[in-house]
């Protein structure tokens, strides 16, 4: 029986439960490491007048100090994919642009001593006006953050698909609303960590970091360090304590530490502390969206007009402005809408630069889109479920090309929607909610969110930030590639090297399932190496753990490498046995022919390639070490019409949230949460459910608790875990149901699509829809604190 598809507990668990995981903070990979602490700007915007490090000599144990200007000797600014990049270094040079921006680096014998050293460094600042509001920043800029962006706009693009103007003019009902999605962040329990070592004799850099996609920004980092890529070797530790995207923004620190190692002449280590992380690591982009949606009287969704302003923080940095484009191919969600106008602005403000956070670009899109559906339903006097049912793409429309160029590979949206409505008892609950009106302060509400979940990002989507004319002057970019190596040693030991740098998703286990299935060997005979080394792991620009790409890309690369091994071993067996290899197969790790089992095992065949290569028949090379690059289909560069299939596959999910809202206290209780996913074939349902549970918690946090709040001066108000509210076990829904449909991904051998981000895209919308339903108000911003709830109730009652 196939192991794939089974709920197999993880091989990773043993070491992690025992406390024997090896995380970045646990590593001292070279001798003589010094510990780094970073002095950070207390101002959101200021000129640096003077940095005085003269008193450092009074602090015992200090190795050396670096300021921004010192970096100019060894670094170039980071490249970024917009027509007019701004100058971005990993440390402020002469001017600070967000609270927490690095200003001085000190290395010392211990972190304690390094922090003592920061205490005696004096920096004088001349404060500058602070740019905090996204719209003011670009419409009436009080000041330009960067010379070459006088209106603080780092990227602006407009797209028209179909004829949205006419379609909106002819629509019977126009829904117009302004939505605000807040800044929030991923909060992995492990913070960033970097060890860097510059070897003077060779000029080579080695950097260890808990970065889950080292190749994606390898070239960016090498460029900043002014070396060719082979001279920058990046290694990841065996275990990474969660990332959910945000650890991709560790890369400026990798460069900073590498430069520090070079300038100070010793290896250096920096483990970010929690306050540094909250203030200065990264964040999801906040977004203001103006949405106009046109509907016919009978509920046909005809046209969509979106103008969106992203707050990308003080410096636009790679991979931004990708938040605006990651979902470009699935802009219209699950709905068959052919007329779309989109206007995008990436705006710089005096806040920490943004980057990947689970769901990347998804919640910023789906919160407005799915709220619009509910607002429209109310205006059209239709049931929100019925309105969705009337507009979702039908099963016979697949593969479906969206207006903006996405190619939805497969799905059965109406039946997933039905499953979700049934599982939640949608009709009955609505009845119950109606009956409860006017009895006491508690109101019940139910909300749906319907999400097309992209996975396996097309590397080319980021280039849509350029106009077609600008793109024509560059080399095209495309693809979603993953690589894996399956090797067998002389005694039959199997090792698999993967390129996904997992941080908890269980890839080591799923890879065993795949390889064990192909070679019919026990999973225990396989060892999976998940830590990456850019000098050893097959180089793939798109590798790593982001955009839910493992199931769609990484797993297929493993499968195809294992197939290569199988083909080779069977060819060898065929020659040994003198039969046609088509008559042979593996079973229980042994070759079977038409006559039954032979005495050739995987171990024996691999052994032959190692011990006695001179007897190998022609066409069979020594050793077993097969690397396979797997490329997902349909991921082409953008067309001249700006059509882009931004992801390789598209899953689907429907969430239904039931809430009780106390109109007096503002307390929201999520009574029940149903989420139904269609991610194709599930490789390991136990782990798939785990991803979904985590995604729901994450989405719930963004809906009800989490926000990086800043005051007018750009100071972060929620900078510790006491006030940035990550949900605990007690805040989880009272009941949570996860169900699955299985429409396979047609373009891949394993048929799996990514999952794990979907609920981050849906939960904010589902819960906001439920609360809006309960209160009879339209919620247009998140998160929903008791304060915002009571205020919207008062406003409705004309008291606010």
């Amino acid at each position: 029986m196939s192991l794939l598809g089974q709920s197999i507990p993880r091989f990773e668990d043993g070491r992690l439960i025992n406390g024997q995981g090896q995380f970045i903070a646990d590593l001292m990979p070279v001798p003589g490491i010094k510990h780094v602490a970073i002095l950070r700007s207390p101002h959101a915007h200021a000129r640096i007048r003077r940095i005085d490090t003269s008193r450092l000599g009074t602090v015992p144990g200090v190795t050396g100090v670096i300021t921004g200007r010192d970096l100019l000797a060894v670094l170039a600014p980071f490249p970024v994919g917009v027509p007019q990049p701004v100058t971005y270094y990993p440390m402020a040079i002469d001017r600070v642009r967000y609270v927490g921006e690095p200003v001085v680096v000190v290395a010392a014998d211990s972190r304690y001593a390094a922090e003592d050293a920061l205490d005696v460094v004096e920096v004088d600042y001349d404060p500058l006006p602070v740019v905090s509001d996204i719209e003011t920043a670009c419409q009436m800029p009080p000041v330009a953050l960067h010379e070459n962006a006088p209106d603080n706009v780092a990227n602006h693009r407009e797209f028209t698909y179909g004829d949205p103007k006419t379609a909106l003019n002819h629509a019977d009902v126009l829904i117009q609303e302004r939505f605000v999605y807040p800044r929030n962040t991923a909060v992995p329990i492990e913070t960033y960590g970097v060890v860097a070592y510059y070897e003077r004799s060779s000029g080579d850099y080695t950097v260890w970091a808990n970065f889950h996609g080292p190749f994606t920004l390898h070239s960016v980092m090498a460029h900043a360090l002014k070396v060719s890529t082979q001279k920058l070797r990046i290694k990841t530790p065996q275990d990474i304590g969660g990332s959910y995207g945000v650890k991709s923004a560790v890369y400026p620190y990798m460069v900073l530490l590498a430069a520090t190692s070079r300038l100070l002449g010793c290896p250096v280590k920096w483990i970010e502390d929690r306050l540094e992380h909250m203030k200065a690591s990264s964040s999801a982009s906040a977004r203001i969206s103006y949405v106009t949606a046109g509907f016919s009287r009978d509920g046909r969704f005809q046209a969509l007009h979106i103008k969106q302003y992203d707050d990308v923080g003080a410096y636009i940095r790679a991979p931004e402005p990708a938040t605006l484009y990651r979902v470009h191919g699935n802009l219209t969600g699950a709905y068959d809408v052919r007329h779309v106008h989109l206007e995008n602005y990436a705006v710089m403000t005096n806040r920490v630069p943004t980057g990947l956070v689970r769901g990347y670009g998804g919640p910023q899109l789906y919160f407005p889109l799915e709220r619009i559906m509910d607002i429209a339903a109310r205006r059209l006097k239709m049931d929100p479920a019925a309105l969705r049912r009337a507009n979702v793409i039908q099963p016979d429309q697949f593969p479906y090309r969206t207006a903006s160029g996405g190619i939805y590979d497969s799905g059965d949206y109406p039946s997933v929607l039905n499953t979700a409505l049934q599982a939640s008892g949608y009709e009955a609950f609505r009845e119950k909610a109606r009956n409860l009106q006017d009895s006491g302060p508690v109101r019940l509400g139910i909300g749906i969110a319907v999400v097309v979940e992209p996975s396996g990002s097309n590397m080319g989507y980021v280039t849509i930030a350029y106009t077609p004319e600008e793109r024509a002057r560059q080399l095209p970019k495309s693809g979603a590639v993953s690589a894996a190596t399956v090797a067998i040693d002389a005694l039959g030991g199997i090792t698999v090297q993967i390129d996904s740098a997992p941080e908890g998703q269980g890839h080591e286990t799923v890879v065993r399932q795949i390889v064990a299935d192909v070679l019919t060997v026990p999973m225990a005979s396989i060892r999976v190496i998940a830590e990456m080394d850019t000098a050893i792991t097959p180089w793939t620009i798109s590798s790593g753990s982001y955009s839910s790409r493992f199931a769609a890309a990484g797993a297929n690369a493993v499968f195809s490498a294992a197939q290569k091994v199988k083909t080779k071993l069977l060819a060898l067996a065929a020659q040994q046995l003198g039969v046609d290899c088509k008559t042979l197969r593996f079973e229980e790790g042994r070759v079977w022919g038409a006559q039954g089992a032979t005495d050739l095992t995987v171990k024996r065949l691999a052994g032959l390639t190692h011990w006695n290569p001179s007897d190998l028949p022609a066409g069979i090379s020594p050793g077993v070490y097969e690397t396979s690059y797997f490329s997902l289909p349909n991921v082409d560069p953008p067309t001249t019409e700006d059509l882009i299939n931004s992801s390789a596959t598209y899953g689907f999910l429907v969430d239904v949230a039931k809430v009780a809202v106390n109109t007096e206290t503002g307390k929201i209780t999520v009574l029940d949460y149903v989420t139904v996913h269609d991610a194709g074939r599930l490789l390991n349902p136990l782990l798939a459910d785990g991803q979904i549970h985590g995604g729901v918690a994450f989405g719930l946090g963004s809906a009800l608790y989490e926000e990086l709040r800043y005051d007018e001066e750009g100071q972060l108000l929620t900078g510790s875990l006491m006030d940035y509210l990550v949900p605990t076990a007690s805040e989880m829904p009272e009941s949570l149901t996860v169900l699955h449909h299985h429409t396979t991904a047609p373009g891949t051998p394993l048929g799996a699509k990514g999952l794990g981000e979907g609920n981050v895209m849906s939960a904010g919308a589902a819960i906001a829809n439920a609360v809006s339903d309960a209160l009879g108000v339209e919620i247009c911003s998140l998160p929903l604190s008791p304060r915002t709830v009571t205020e919207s109730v008062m406003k409705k009652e004309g008291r606010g």
Partner: protein
Amino acid sequence: MTRYAKDQRVPVTLAVNGHEYRRWIEPRLLLSDFLRDELGLTGTHVGCEHGVCGACTILFNGAPVRSCLKLAIDVGDGQITTIEGLVKDDEFDAFRQAFSQNHALQCGFCTPGVVVSVWEALKRASDSESVDWNDVLSGHLCRCTGYVGIRRAIMALQAKGGGKTEA
């Protein structure tokens, strides 16, 4: 009365996992750093250093506490148990299995702390004390699991141990 100067190294003897360790330390050294850096017991993780995340939780005289909010110099003759100590317990195998089978962890960074707290609370539950699991679990932030697997593991262990409360 004894006074140790800030820049003085102070001899301390700490009882950790049944062993006595003698080290010379600065007065300000946090217990979490002592365990990790002085003793190499890196199973105790550090996630916030202000007492919220729970990753650094250890047992101090049998009760779960934050090692990031304790000074190594102030431990006295308290008995410390870290994850490395629990693992040696005969009953730990069943515990590990329940966590794994119920997928109670993903990245595993919060896990040692969670394990320490759940282990202690289960002991109390089996002493027929009633345990408020929301209370126990709210002392730990897990960003991966949504706590679903953790609760399932607890239920599985309770079903086995005949405990009284529900997770």
